[in-house]
């Protein structure tokens, strides 16, 4: 008897999320036999738009590549332009950049933790963790004026200083997270149900992570010690001793499963708190921007010729920008790459052999935008009958599985 497989397309578009994408699954019974990825439903042509704008305008465009990484893209972009035009960033600005970037990592990782809990059916944890995330968003608003899209990066430095009287407020937030971290760790790492749903699920081996050039926590959870903050330290990271975190620090072993990805992100939360603290302790004094006058800066960039690459370790992994300036108002080339681009292919080995109910948590585990979960069609090839699964149905399947396996 031939094996009858079903084809399940998941995706592509939910307008409110940032990375709509289609997955086509071949399913045998409950098991995934084949995965086909089809991204591109939300290609906005941002690079093309950028090439019609001057570098200062691009900063704000880059900020809007991703709502969560709205410090990472301008960080990498500003570094690329500075490298291309030979602009030196004042030391104080380098520290402020790192503080903002690390605060962003804290809110991004907590956001992810909430989403992961939601995918497993722990909605109360979603609410608790997102409540905890508000604290750092409030702090970012206090420091930059915005909860996201901070608008603090500028070519040659930052636009706003961190003053003496702002520092106690930052320390207060750090203390808050140190207090609640024990609780977060308890919920995610000691809960037997979470362990049941995430251990040995969505495994990415170290070989696959290397071969497919995975980045960020996804690669580190598989045992690849890759972190630009460690490998090629830039800005204030060059003064701090940042180490790439792999799950064996806590558990003593590397499995590369979803559980390990949770471990890595939670440990990075602590690491980020430490980095911000060290930055505050050693914050150098001085200027915060190389060229205060925008007109002068634009003129300098207009005359500049050269190419530059800027890299930054975003919460999801390496973010890289390339720019070529050619003595003109507009850049000749701008290339931006977000981390999920490289983690895309890693989904295939993770999803093969898994169950339909595990799709949400495995896809969420690399921390993409799970826009794709919006609607699912189950197509029975034999009679052409279509069943449409909405995000709600798929979520329900996942919740049921949690209930089923909980002792």
């Amino acid at each position, binding site marked *: 008897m031939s094996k009858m497989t079903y084809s399940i397309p998941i995706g592509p578009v939910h307008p409110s999320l940032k990375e709509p994408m289609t997955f086509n699954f071949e399913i045998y019974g409950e098991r995934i036999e084949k995965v086909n990825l089809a991204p591109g439903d939300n290609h906005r042509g941002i690079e093309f738009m950028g090439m019609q704008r001057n570098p200062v305008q691009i900063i704000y465009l880059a900020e809007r590549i991703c709502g969560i990484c709205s410090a990472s893209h301008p960080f990498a972009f500003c570094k690329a332009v500075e490298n291309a035009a030979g602009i030196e960033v004042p030391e104080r600005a380098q520290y402020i950049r790192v503080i903002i970037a690390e605060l962003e990592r804290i809110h991004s990782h907590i956001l992810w933790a909430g989403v992961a809990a939601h995918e497993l059916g722990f909605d109360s944890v979603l609410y608790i963790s997102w409540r905890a995330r508000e604290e750092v968003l409030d702090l970012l608003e206090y420091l930059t004026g915005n909860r996201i899209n901070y608008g603090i990066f500028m070519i040659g430095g930052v636009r706003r200083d961190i003053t003496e009287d702002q520092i106690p407020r930052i320390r207060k937030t750090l203390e808050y997270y140190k207090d609640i971290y024990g609780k977060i760790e308890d919920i995610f790492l000691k809960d037997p149900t979470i362990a049941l749903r995430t251990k040995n699920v969505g495994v990415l081996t170290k070989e696959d992570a290397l071969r497919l050039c995975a980045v960020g926590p996804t690669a580190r959870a598989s045992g690849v010690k890759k972190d630009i903050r460690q490998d090629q330290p830039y800005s204030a990271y*060059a003064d701090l*001793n940042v180490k790439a975190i792999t799950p064996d620090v806590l558990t003593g072993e590397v499995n590369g499963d979803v559980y390990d990805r949770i471990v890595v992100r939670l440990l990075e939360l602590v690491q980020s708190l430490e980095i911000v603290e060290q930055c505050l302790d050693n914050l150098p004094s001085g200027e915060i921007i190389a060229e205060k006058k925008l007109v002068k800066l634009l003129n300098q960039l207009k005359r500049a010729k050269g190419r530059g690459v800027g890299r930054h370790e975003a919460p999801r992994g390496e973010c890289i920008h*390339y720019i070529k300036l050619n003595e003109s108002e507009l850049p000749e080339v701008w290339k931006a*790459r977000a981390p999920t681009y490289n983690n*895309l*292919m890693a989904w295939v080995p993770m999803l093969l052999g898994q169950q339909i109910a595990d799709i949400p948590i495995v896809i969420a585990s690399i921390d993409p935008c799970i826009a794709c979960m919006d609607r699912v069609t189950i197509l029975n090839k034999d009679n052409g009958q279509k069943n449409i699964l909405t995000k709600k149905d798929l979520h329900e399947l996942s919740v049921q599985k949690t209930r089923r396996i909980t002792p």
Partner: protein
Amino acid sequence: MKYMKPEEIIELFKGRFGDSIIDSKIESKEEGVKKNSYNIIWLMIKLENFKDAVKLLCSIQFPHFAIISGNDLGEEIELIYYFSLYYGERFKEISLNITTFLPKEDLKISTITDLIPGTQTAEREAIEMFGIKVEGLPDSPNLFLPKDFAKDTYPFRRDEKGIYPLSKNGKYVGDNIAKREEEVKKVE
């Protein structure tokens, strides 16, 4: 593990490929208060030796691949592949950016997915955005552009095969609006 210096890496490539290396440059950046530095290598290599260069790179250490960026230079298309070596240890990583040029009349490059599988997405992007033929990569529907995007039109090309920005009232003006202010005015 033995770490090669950036100069040694360039010597290794020059020794193997000789005149095929069109240009090479080491960029050193100092960062932070302590002024620690890291290195970026820029290598320009002729197309016929490109794949061998990647093979040589893989023999040093399995490199991490980031992205391919392209640029339409008129007569040819420039592709830059971004790699990094010696990741995993503090201050040891070296970025290596390999540039190669494809003539417009024969836009072909062989795939490196057999060496580094992770390059597939980026190669497909180059196919869609610049109309490059990547030999050895199986055909697939568009990954980035809409499935029904016009055939033989490539967004990042600056010639007749590119997409032309529109003026405010929706007429074609060609190339870059800011560069062609007069033509835009005429159309409008």
